[in-house]
């Protein structure tokens, strides 16, 4: 797929950062406002798909290869599963914790001051334990995965257009 006209490219230049910031906001505030890793990742991947439509897949694949996106997606998946397994492993470090798969080990303790606050209606970003970190991991995974799908399928159509 080759690029579109100058008008489309200009509008994309204006709209793309706004879409990116909104999607990253949805991911970062997943434990406070509606949305989360999957939804924010879909928003960011839509913005990247808009870039792909406006500039063409040949231009985009000169900037980023699908192998790099595949590595990013694997980092997200390993981070998600690693956080789940840390719930078991933390019992060896701090004996006061109760070890479980998907245990929220960051919440309600004073050893690690990261996302450890608790309480109703705080609307504070420093709450909810391991949930924001899992949101980041899943968001990275969804961004890289959906953009890899769209990029690979768009690049496969260049043969029909004779390029």
């Amino acid at each position: 797929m080759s690029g579109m006209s100058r008008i489309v490219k200009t509008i994309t230049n204006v709209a793309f950062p706004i879409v990116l910031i909104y999607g990253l906001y949805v991911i970062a505030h997943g434990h406070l406002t509606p949305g989360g890793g999957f939804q924010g990742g879909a928003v960011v991947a839509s913005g990247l798909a808009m870039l792909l439509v406006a500039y063409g897949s040949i231009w985009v694949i000169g900037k980023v290869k699908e192998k790099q996106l595949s590595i990013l997606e694997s980092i997200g998946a390993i981070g998600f599963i690693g956080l789940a397994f840390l719930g078991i492993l933390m019992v060896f470090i701090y004996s006061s914790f109760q070890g479980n798969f998907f245990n929220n080990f960051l919440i309600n303790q004073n050893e690690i001051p990261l996302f450890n606050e608790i309480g109703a209606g705080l609307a504070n970003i420093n709450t909810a334990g391991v949930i924001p970190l899992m949101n980041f991991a899943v968001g990275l995974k969804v961004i890289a995965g959906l953009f890899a799908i769209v990029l690979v399928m768009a690049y496969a159509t260049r043969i029909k257009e004779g390029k």
Partner: protein
Amino acid sequence: MNKRNFAAVIFFAIVGAFLLFTALMMHPFGNFNEENTPEMDEYIIDNTQNETGADNGVTAVVFDYRGFDTLGEATVLFTAVAGVILVFRRLKK
């Protein structure tokens, strides 16, 4: 009416009756009290903020109470991406 259409009508009647009775047994909308709320809903609405600290109850359920479900969902996405990249890979000439 042949045999196949007859089976389709029977199937449609059974599914339609099932959906109708399910709709009639739903809880009244916007009427929150102790009697017409299931216990699980009540527990999550009452205890989510004090147990996980997250204000967004849906994210608390998805990433904390039901983490296994999210793990399966992530696995489905990973498999889909791997399959699409496998099908549309670039072959060396």
